[in-house]
């Protein structure tokens, strides 16, 4: 399988937010009956029609890599996870609407995945702080998805949705809030489905069409990030 043909999208988030259910819903349009713990990484494939409805419509396979674990893991676990972050084309950040901490951890997750692409030595370098400039500059498309929407009572919904809107803004990304046990949220034609479609289109565009004349896939992202300043390795 030539590396040239892949479109790889990572699905990141804390343990228990519903990444496996989400991936299953995205790929099979069905609800996952028995979600269990993800060990390592589980991959699934979604067939996506790029520019659907236009004459340039083309079918692509999008690989959704669902990486399990927690941000606070030991360095050895993070180095192991880092092997999955190679050559990625898009990131879906998943958080649990009923758990604020999972939203806060998204910053660390995104830094972990994005910084991995930067460091040529393979050593995980990050100063752990959230730097807004980094995200403004970011070339890899991000999407923020909030799960378990059905478990939020109506009265609190506005407050929660405002918070997540800020979160998505920080990442310079679109956001979708849904319940993974109900396929209605991603029904064809709904605004969520449109956002999702737009996100995947953006991923494919960045991957195949907006190249600065570079033929080698993946390295152009490295060039855009690797400004040269290596932040010091600092882990508690």
């Amino acid at each position, binding site marked *: *399988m030539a590396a040239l043909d892949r479109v790889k999208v990572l699905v990141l988030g804390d343990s228990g937010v519903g990444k496996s259910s989400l991936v299953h819903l995205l790929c099979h349009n069905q609800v996952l009956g028995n979600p269990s713990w993800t060990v390592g990484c589980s991959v699934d494939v979604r067939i996506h029609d790029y520019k659907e409805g236009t004459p340039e419509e083309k079918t692509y396979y999008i690989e959704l890599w669902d990486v399990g674990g927690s941000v606070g893991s*030991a360095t050895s676990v993070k180095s192991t996870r880092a092997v999955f972050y190679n050559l990625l084309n898009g990131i879906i950040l998943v958080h649990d609407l009923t758990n604020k901490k999972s939203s806060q951890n998204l910053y660390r997750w995104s830094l972990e995945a994005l910084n991995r692409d930067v460091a040529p030595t393979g050593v995980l370098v990050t100063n752990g702080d959230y730097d807004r400039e980094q995200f403004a500059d970011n070339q890899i498309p991000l999407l923020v998805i909030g799960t378990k929407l059905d478990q939020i009572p109506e009265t609190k919904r506005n407050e929660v949705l405002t918070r997540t809107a800020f979160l998505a803004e920080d990442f310079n990304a679109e956001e979708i809030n849904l319940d993974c046990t109900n396929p209605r949220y991603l029904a064809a034609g709904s605004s969520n489905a449109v956002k999702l479609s737009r996100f995947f289109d953006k991923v494919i565009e960045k991957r195949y069409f907006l190249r600065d004349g570079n033929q080698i896939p993946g390295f152009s992202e490295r060039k855009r990030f690797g400004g040269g300043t290596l932040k010091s390795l600092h882990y508690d």
Partner: protein
Amino acid sequence: MSFLIDSSIMVTSQVLFFGFGWLFFMRKLFKDYEVRQYVVQVIFSVTFAFSCTMFELIIFEILGVLNSSSRYFHWKLNLCVILLILVFMVPFYIGYFVVSNIRLLHRQKLLFACVLWLTFMYFFWKLGDPFPILSPKHGILSIEQLISRVGVIGVTLMALLSGFGAVNCPYTYMSYFLRNVTDADILALERRLLQTMDMIISKKKRIAVAHRTMFQRGEVHNKPTGFWGMIKSVTTSVSSSENLSLIQQEVDALEELSRQLFLETADLHATKERIEYSKTFQGKYFNVLGYFFSIYCVWKIFMATINIVFDRVGKTDPVTRGIEITVNYLGIQFDVKFWSQHISFILVGIIIVTSIRGLLITLTKFFYAISSSKSSNVIVLLLAQIMGMYFVSSVLLIRMSMPLEYRTIITEVLGELQFNFYHRWFDVIFLVSALSSILFLYLAHKQAPEKHMTP
């Protein structure tokens, strides 16, 4: 008057312990979760606070701080509260949270929680029958009945943990057991992992394409096509679905393989980190410490065996025996009373602090490993239960490490328990736990390099 002062000192210290338990809960245990039920946090902190107060009272006993009658009063009070929490409150809340996780029983939450609690009480009571822990003098609902059963559970836990800890500690500290891992090994394994992921992806693509064409063809086939068309559709779809299920089986097998490879890679990374750590100064220090601990571990196993085989229970505590030895054999004369008090204070203090710290660290690790957002409340309450029982039985066992004059208050407060039984039971379980840990670690160690060697 002095009673009031003593009580206020005790209350202040309890509030301090409560605060510490609260912080520990927030910062360490629940750092990835949002606390929605504050009851859980309160119960955990209260259990922690009262357990620590018990230890504090032992220390006060040794140092002679506070009035003796007010100490006795606080002991009794503390014990009653802890037993109330461990036997009534925590199990009830565990039952309540377990029931609230099950959606079916949502309506009758309280009823089912009570049912669960009654089941727990039944088994808890039955626990006392096979053990010779009580004299029949006491009535049904007395402190001695409850403490004896709590003690049995707690002592079993303590012995299991310390047996495993005694063996695991030198195993992790000493670098003799570290397998040699090179960067090339890790890279090779990672490459295998990525190859497996690629294979899974290509197979899933085939399945997805087949599903899509079937779906599109299925729509076409909804129109009536006639006799031959129907037969054709049956045969083609049967064969393609058979094909699909074969591919699905292959995908499942590959996914299992990818999980194993991931775990192995994580293991290799961890070993590499440990190798690098062992080259540092701290690592070398721990290595030497590991040798000492292994000697200590062997000695403890030996002593436990002797105790069981020769059916003896130590009459004197290590402090007094140590002092006797120094006075009689080494001829050093010093004020026995003064030094015995201070040395036993230090010894008991160290035992208490290390056991609290060790337990909290173990609990935290355990919690991270098995909790999820749904079950976090139940697990924390279980941990609070274990912690309470552990501390109560530490008090039982610590009695043996103290000189006679300080044992009286524990004996008085806890009533006529068969202390010797607990020590014997501890030795038995410790031996069993240590030997099975050795077996388990030996097997795990043997198996790992073989897995690693296969290309």
